[in-house]
């Protein structure tokens, strides 16, 4: 699995811990890594993904329906699952502010034996910056 994931586009390094079943993937500097592709590659190597967490830097954008998303590349963004943490980022929507967030992109459903590699990845925020930038506070 380590070799399989290491061959994926944008992957710098893969660390596998057999003891706790954790796989750490470090993207290449400025590399375009695709979490959905990683999920599929892991699935293809015969291993079930229970959870996938991501730490990313990006801009908060709001689509026409008013849903928030984290834009990590000009052509790649992840819809943000609404929760208390996402509310604190609403003031940053469509600004030029770059934030670093940690969130859960995928969690296996209890009744599913295998991960569904084709599932739409939504970002459930677990951690956001403690201090919202001053320019965003002025808007409120």
């Amino acid at each position, binding site marked *: *699995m380590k070799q399989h994931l290491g061959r994926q586009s944008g992957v710098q390094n893969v660390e*596998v811990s*057999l003891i*706790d*079943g*954790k*796989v*750490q*993937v*470090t*993207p290449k500097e*400025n*590399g375009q*890594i695709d*979490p959905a592709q*990683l999920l599929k590659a*892991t699935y293809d190597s*015969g*291993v*079930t*993904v*229970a*959870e*996938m*967490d*991501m*730490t*990313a*830097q*990006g*801009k908060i954008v709001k689509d026409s329906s008013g849903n928030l998303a984290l*834009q*990590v*590349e000009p052509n790649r963004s992840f819809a943000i699952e609404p929760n208390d943490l996402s509310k604190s980022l609403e003031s940053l929507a469509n600004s030029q502010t*770059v934030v*670093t967030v940690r969130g859960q992109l995928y969690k*296996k459903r209890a009744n599913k034996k295998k991960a569904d590699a084709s599932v739409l990845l939504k970002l459930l925020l677990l951690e956001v910056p403690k201090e919202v930038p001053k320019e965003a506070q002025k808007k409120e």
Partner: protein
Amino acid sequence: MVNAKKFGLLCLLAFVLVPASQAQIKHIEMRVEGMT
């Protein structure tokens, strides 16, 4: 002359700071099952 020097320093500063603020995925962690 002074302005050219300031401009050079500004370019150097921008070169150092811009990559740090770029949007990108920094790290991915997966918890997997069925690994042998």
